[in-house]
């Protein structure tokens, strides 16, 4: 078994030069309907960036562009120094709807291992990596369970484990906690922060929940307008080791929260 305490198990190479992801004047249209306009942002390696915006702003469209599922109409996206023209090998995605993103005919461990099979990893190694990833998200002993035998929160953990076992340089998360109850949601938020701290992985998370965005991020990117532009990128200086109760009770948290809220409300009033 690989040593669980070493963050390097997932092959994350820390402190490489240059941003992991950069968007340069990126725009996107569905036909004549422009959704995203002139988006510019650099995401540093190991950073936790949340993208917030009112519903219908084009958050998911942006994420699909980042994931290489759609191509920008103009401008460019670079991931790990290379221009994105399709899904990058070093990028993993956690989708909102866990009940649809996992394969019901496969056990948890097989779900996690499938992308590794396609990547040509040996049977033994992919099984080991899948078990380590499941342990990382607190699912020891659930590896032989089918997704439908697990609760919603546990299913989303399997989806997160699948992303981790893929050993990506960055994880994209599309409203990953929107379909679970409040307590599970808080647990999954803390789990995601722990995993990020443990593995030093870059996380880009899309959400419509302002509290969640501020609580998780190093920076919050606020999308607004029609077509959507970057209203502001806000630094969140709340430090590491955040706590659902204590952090959210600080005046700094309240202030950041109001700032994001105002930006979003202003854009909604436009």
């Amino acid at each position: 078994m690989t040593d669980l305490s070493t963050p390097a198990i997932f092959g994350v190479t820390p402190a490489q030069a240059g941003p992991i992801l950069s968007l340069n004047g990126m725009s996107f249209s569905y036909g004549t309907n422009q959704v995203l306009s002139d988006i510019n942002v650099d995401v540093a390696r190991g950073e936790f960036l949340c993208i917030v915006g009112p519903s219908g702003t084009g958050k998911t469209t942006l994420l699909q562009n980042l994931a290489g599922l759609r191509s920008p109409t103009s401008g460019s996206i670079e991931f790990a120094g290379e221009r994105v023209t399709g899904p990058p090998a070093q990028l993993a995605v956690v989708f909102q709807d866990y009940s649809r993103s996992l394969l019901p005919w496969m056990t948890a461990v097989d779900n996690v291992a499938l992308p590794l099979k396609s990547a040509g990893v040996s049977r033994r190694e992919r099984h080991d990596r899948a078990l380590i990833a499941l342990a990382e998200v607190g699912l020891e002993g659930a590896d032989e369970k089918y997704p439908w035998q697990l609760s919603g929160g546990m299913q989303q953990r399997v989806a997160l484990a699948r992303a981790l076992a893929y050993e990506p340089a960055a994880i994209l998360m599309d409203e990953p906690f929107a379909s679970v109850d409040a307590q599970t949601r808080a647990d999954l938020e803390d789990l995601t922060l722990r995993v990020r701290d443990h593995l030093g992985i870059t996380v880009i998370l899309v959400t419509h929940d302002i509290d969640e965005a501020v609580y998780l991020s190093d920076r919050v990117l606020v999308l607004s307008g029609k077509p959507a532009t970057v209203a502001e990128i806000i630094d969140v200086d709340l430090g590491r080791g955040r706590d659902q109760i204590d952090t959210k009770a600080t005046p700094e948290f309240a202030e950041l929260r109001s700032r994001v809220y105002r930006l979003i409300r202003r854009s909604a009033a436009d």
Partner: protein
Amino acid sequence: MKTRKRPWARALTEIIWFSWLPVAAFVLIWIFSGMSTSFYLPSAQVVLEQTWQVWFVEGGIAENLVPSLIRLVAGFALAVALGVGFGVLLGLVRPLESAVRPLTDAARTIPGAALLPIAIMFFGLGDAMKIAMIAFISMWPILLNTIEGVRSIDPTLRSVMATFRITRRDRFQHVFLPQAMPQVFAGARIGLAISIAVMVVVEMFGTPGGIGYFIRHAQQTFRVVDMWTGLVILGIFGYLLNILFRILERRVLHWYHAMIAQAQGASA
């Protein structure tokens, strides 16, 4: 409940519940056929005794049942292979499916029996014709169900496969095929019933050997009791094949039945 404590009592109730009608029907047939004086309707007792004699003692099983079984397995396996193969292809490639649709719609509405003279013209009266007929006619429900099954894939799953760069081979083997499997089995069950029917018909017209041939030949040579024994064997044959099919389905679709049971348990 009392039955929960005694599983054997529950099993017994279940057996009685499922078997009262067949048992009653058998008793009625036994009694009424025993009263029959018609040459064409022999008594059940005579038919059963003759069944034992012809099929088990005189080697009817090796002579006529085994060839039928081989033909059926070959034809049905071919139908499954073609149905699933083309079904996955047509289900995945939409433009191809819309192009082929008029052809498949026309071809599957032609009654199977109408193809018999053509099949005899091309393949003769031997096994090639029989297997081709079984395969071609029983392929349709499997093909159409597979197309639907593959199509029902969730858009989220497509995104998952794209972002995790799942290879073509793995998509086929681990995603599209299992996804379509419940519907493939539903189609195959219908296909199996059709292939037994086709088997009997083509054997009646083809070269000697097989249950269909036996029944027709017995009727033509006025061996009426023998003819009825062919029907008894056919009934047992079909029944056993269905059981085999269900065992296979339970193994392959284990996850599916467990998932459904779970969902029903949760909502109940």
